[in-house]
């Protein structure tokens, strides 16, 4: 069983030192008319490069671009679709961060790439960095998409045809399906779909799972066309234990779970087993306190024998943008220490005489 370190999505776009304030300062200068959109792109590229570099330095193998260009997880995608206006601010789950709410005036449709360009820029940035020893061919960028259900749940509509949640979810799913095809076309091998809303609103399961099935069909199509892509579904910001067995039954390649809302989730998963690889969000991406390495390592060891697929991913419970940069980096490094502890223990067991 391989244990691979994976990023869960966002990464801080700012830090305390002046060179880490470049994006914040540039956005403010653009707002004042003192800098150009090209300057903004440069600043975004610089902070993306730094986010990737810190992941590489922490031994993460499945990386993201840190979602540095995203205003928020909802409007960044919805705002690029037709028939959508981005309006008022709303709090994003129980985070003290906000998203701008999409208002649908008709059926949202994809008219251009959503994150394809960002994926290509991140891939180029990763390619321009020195590859650490032993990591050749093992590092890759994982584009992230907010899933159709979460996008639909946080959208409102002025159009009668989009009044039902199912209509909105279906429309978003079609748009995201096209994006998955486009990402596969440009070489993405692994795509993360975030659906935090479903564990908060489990009553919408049927609508949610229909949309997930639609995305799974696209994945099969791309595979048949010689562009295989894996889909990782990530749920977080709520207790996923009540829905675990249903989540594990979905047609996705990897299931990412937030273990921080229920201390018993390790037991739940261990008892039920996992028919697919899991991304274990055992390290809290929302709190600065560093977990005890041996405690988390024991949780991983308990889970590994129960996970199918020959590979398990270790990650934080959610993206790290909610932490100050130094703490976010410390959490990434903690993942590496946990991985080393688990591998050390496995080596010791393997060396024991029978």
């Amino acid at each position, binding site marked *: 069983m391989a244990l691979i370190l994976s990023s869960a999505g966002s990464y801080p776009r700012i830090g305390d030192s002046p060179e880490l304030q470049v994006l914040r300062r540039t956005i403010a200068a653009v707002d004042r008319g003192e800098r150009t959109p090209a300057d903004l792109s440069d600043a975004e590229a610089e902070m993306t490069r730094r986010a990737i570099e810190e992941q590489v330095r922490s031994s993460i193998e499945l990386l993201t671009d840190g979602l540095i260009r995203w*205003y928020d997880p909802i409007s960044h995608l919805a705002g690029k679709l037709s028939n959508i206006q981005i309006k008022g601010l709303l709090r994003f789950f*129980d985070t003290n961060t*906000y998203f701008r709410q999409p208002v649908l005036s008709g059926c949202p449709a994809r008219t251009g790439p959503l994150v394809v360009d960002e994926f290509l820029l991140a891939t180029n940035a990763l390619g321009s960095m020195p590859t650490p020893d032993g990591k050749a061919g093992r590092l890759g960028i994982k584009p992230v998409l907010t899933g159709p259900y979460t996008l639909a749940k946080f959208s409102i509509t002025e159009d009668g045809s989009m009044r039902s949640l199912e209509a909105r979810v279906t429309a978003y799913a079609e748009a995201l399906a096209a994006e998955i095809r486009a990402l596969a076309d440009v070489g993405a091998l692994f795509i993360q779909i975030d659906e935090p809303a479903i564990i908060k609103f489990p009553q919408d399961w049927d609508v949610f799972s229909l949309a997930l099935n639609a995305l799974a069909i696209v994945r099969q199509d791309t595979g048949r066309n010689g562009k295989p892509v894996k889909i990782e579904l990530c749920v977080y910001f709520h207790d996923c234990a009540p829905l675990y067995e249903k989540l594990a039954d979905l047609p996705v390649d990897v299931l990412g779970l937030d273990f921080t809302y229920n201390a018993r989730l390790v037991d739940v998963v261990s008892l039920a087993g996992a028919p697919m690889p899991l991304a274990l969000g055992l390290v809290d991406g929302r709190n600065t306190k560093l977990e005890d390495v041996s405690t988390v390592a024991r949780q991983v060891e308990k889970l590994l024998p129960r996970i199918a697929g020959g590979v398990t991913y270790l990650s934080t419970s959610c993206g790290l*943008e909610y932490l*100050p940069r130094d703490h976010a980096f410390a959490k990434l490094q903690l993942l590496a220490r946990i991985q080393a502890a688990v591998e050390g223990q496995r080596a010791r067991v393997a060396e024991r005489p029978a």
Partner: protein
Amino acid sequence: MSRARLQQLGVDLPLFPTTSVGSFPKPDYLVKARSDFNKGKITALQLEELERKATAFWIAKQEELGIDVLVDGEMYRGDMVAYFAERLPGFTTSGVVRSYGNRYYHKPIVTGEVRWTKPITVDWYKYAQSLTNKPVKGMLTGPYTVMDWSFNEYYPDRKATCMALAGVIRKEVEALVAAGCKIIQIDEPALSVRPEELRIAIEAMRIVTDGLNAYFITHACYGAFEYIYPGMLEMPVQNFDLEMSNSDLHMIELFRSKPFTKDISFGVVDVHSHVIEDVATVRKRVERALSILPKEQVWVDPDCGLKTRTVEEAIEKLRACVAAARAFRN
């Protein structure tokens, strides 16, 4: 509804009292001074002098506009949680995290037992009140929000953190009451983030306000109130200050399903838009409020703190509030 309590406190307000939620934009000279102070170019005393000047400006401006219940404008604060955390032993300041867009703040970390050692806001309250005969609100952040918007490395769980903070904030409320403050706003914008924890927020607010002789307001905003209404009405305060305009007054429908039983400070202007609402728009919003609420319950104010607007925008938004309220009084 709670007029009797206000009268018992000696506070006589017209119908549709106007107020604001707390923060106002800092004048350019103060923004520069705060930056200079952080770089060590000016002293704390020099900064405070400018904060007092800016406070006096906003008190005079609110009087000129005809606002009924004034705020000090929070010229001396940055973030509403960090300000208190920086003054309470037990907290450590962290690096910056993003709030939304290009706005960031220093999210505090609870690293030890949180203790109240001396008044935090009382001198500013006294100063602001000394500048006007109108009532000035005492302005605090509530225990549930301070807990939710801080990292916790010390207390065993969220409830323990919240209850510890409630005891601390009560001491500040007692100090404000002792200083003569009669209307105290305890902001809980995080109130709706975990509906399953509403009871914790209510219990904490009870610790903060129980038995104290003041008119209490709590402010909440940008949340999913449909999941905590009507349970949120059990908060032991007299007035709920709610952001209404940003969400196109959607909450009105909630109030139709189950009556809103407290006074309401009804947010009638959007604080995240540069557009200045005209008086007719604001009047329509108040009319919507009156379609389900008795006029004696309704206060008129902006959705939230105005600190993200320019000084001119903030003034014009307040002017629209006052004009609409006066139209209804007449």
